[in-house]
């Protein structure tokens, strides 16, 4: 009624719990933001690996023995396998990698010896296949082995499935962490609300005696919790943003072809920005539910 300030019938803003709740919510939102960003990156990683390696085969021929080379010094096995692959139904493109390309790939792990040609190198053929109508892999393996015994036809599925499992596990763990953070926040708010109910028992009794319904009392608590939850959520998000930036920066420094671009898309950012709103809603609904449930048990 007063023009000078909006008053609360229950003076919750004077409680000590009110001072710590935003801090606790901020920590929860910080953790949730990191976990959510982790889940989104893991999802992106899995999608990239899945789409990047779908429709690709690698044929690895053993290193050519000097005796196997013909008079011109070339190994006749490689062109024969390339020709076989090109004639195979479902194969779109065949690219026999040059020795220099293979050496360059192995150089970071094996050193200059590879470039000097001191080590026997396998020959690699990158094959692009029609993902919709892939070739019969078992038959292709048999045909390749008939021409080049000891060769490998790798569709990457074994390796890829392990990586995808890892990415999904990271994603699920992140989602579980978010769920646990929400549960922890709800338990914490319920506890603080019960403390508030006990601390303001006399004021609440008076409000009831002059005609307040439980929903009126619950509104006092839920509005207070909404404000604290929103404040804590914003603090948590503001703290999470530099951490996410730092994480992205560190991952970019790895400079590995395995990792996708780590920047989040606009819709992914909007999910993170909604976290303070979500935290405010969780605290508000928890406070309301706790008050109504506690008061309903009273005589």
């Amino acid at each position: 009624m007063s023009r000078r300030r909006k008053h609360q019938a229950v003076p919750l803003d004077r409680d000590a719990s009110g001072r710590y709740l935003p801090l606790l919510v901020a920590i929860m939102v910080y953790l949730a933001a990191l976990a959510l960003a982790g889940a989104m990156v893991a999802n992106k990683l899995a999608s990239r690996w899945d789409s990047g390696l779908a429709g690709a085969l690698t044929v690895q021929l053993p290193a050519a023995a000097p005796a196997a080379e013909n008079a011109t010094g070339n190994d006749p096995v490689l062109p024969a396998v390339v020709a076989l692959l090109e004639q195979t139904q479902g194969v779109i493109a065949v690219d026999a990698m040059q020795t220099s390309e293979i050496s360059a790939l192995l150089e970071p792990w094996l050193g200059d010896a590879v470039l000097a040609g001191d080590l026997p190198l396998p020959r690699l053929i990158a094959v692009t296949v029609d993902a919709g109508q892939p070739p019969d892999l078992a038959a292709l393996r048999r045909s390749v082995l008939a021409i080049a015994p000891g060769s490998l036809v790798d569709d990457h599925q074994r390796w890829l499935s392990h990586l995808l499992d890892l990415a999904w596990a990271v994603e699920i763990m992140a989602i579980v962490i978010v769920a646990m953070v929400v549960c922890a926040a709800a338990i914490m708010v319920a506890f603080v609300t019960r403390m508030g109910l006990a601390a303001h028992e006399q004021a609440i009794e008076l409000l009831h005696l002059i005609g307040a319904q439980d929903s009126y009392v619950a509104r006092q608590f839920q509005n207070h919790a909404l404000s604290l939850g929103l404040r804590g959520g914003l603090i948590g998000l503001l703290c999470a943003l530099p951490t996410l930036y730092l994480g992205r920066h560190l991952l970019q420094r790895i400079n590995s072809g395995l990792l996708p671009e780590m920047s989040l898309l606009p819709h992914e950012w909007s999910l993170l920005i909604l976290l303070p709103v979500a935290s405010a809603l969780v605290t508000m609904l928890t406070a309301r539910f706790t008050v109504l449930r506690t008061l309903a048990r009273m005589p």
Partner: protein
Amino acid sequence: MVRFEDVVLRYGKGPEILKHISLQFDPGSYHFLVGASGAGKSSLLRMMYLAQHPSDGRVALFGRDIAGLSRRETALLRRQIGVVFQDFRLLEHLTARENVALPLQISGEAGARSAKDVEELLSWVGLADHMDALPPTLSGGQQQRVAIARAVIGRPSLLLADEPTGNLDDRMAVRLLYLFEELNKIGTTVVIATHNESLVQRFRHPITRLSGGEIDSSGDSAAAPKREAP
């Protein structure tokens, strides 16, 4: 309006505080509940403002048995009852103005007009200069007047007052009892519990005397309230 039938009250397993009370206060009536300290006046009032259920017997308010009321119905019924508590029960963090406006805010009637009503009422009880004062800064008598203003602001159908003049000088006490009379004239049923016999004698209203948790029928029969047959 208020009907007690063979009502017994005890707290826990303790002794009977009220013993087989039967009484009826008709709509628009004005009653004094008189008795010494510990006679059971406050306990009787507590049942009338729905803070206490009887251990035995039946209490009906506005024609409804209070035993069968839901929490929502209880809240709505309480909005028709104004109470002046013996210990005032003002919210210390709210100003006098906000305390008085609280029943209107709860019932959703708060607005510019009700704000004016609050100011007028506070002026009438002599607190025009203390509208924005917090209760701890007010004297006992001033707090009591805020409590009285809060009880009557919603124009209740039933006004219950527990020692409403305990902290007031005689002049202000009489003035407030006349305020209650004015409310009574527009249909409010008034029940005042007091130990101040001399004050009660200034008004010709029915008196119910309580002694040891029972109605003392040896009192002024002419002023006795209408009672139910046992």
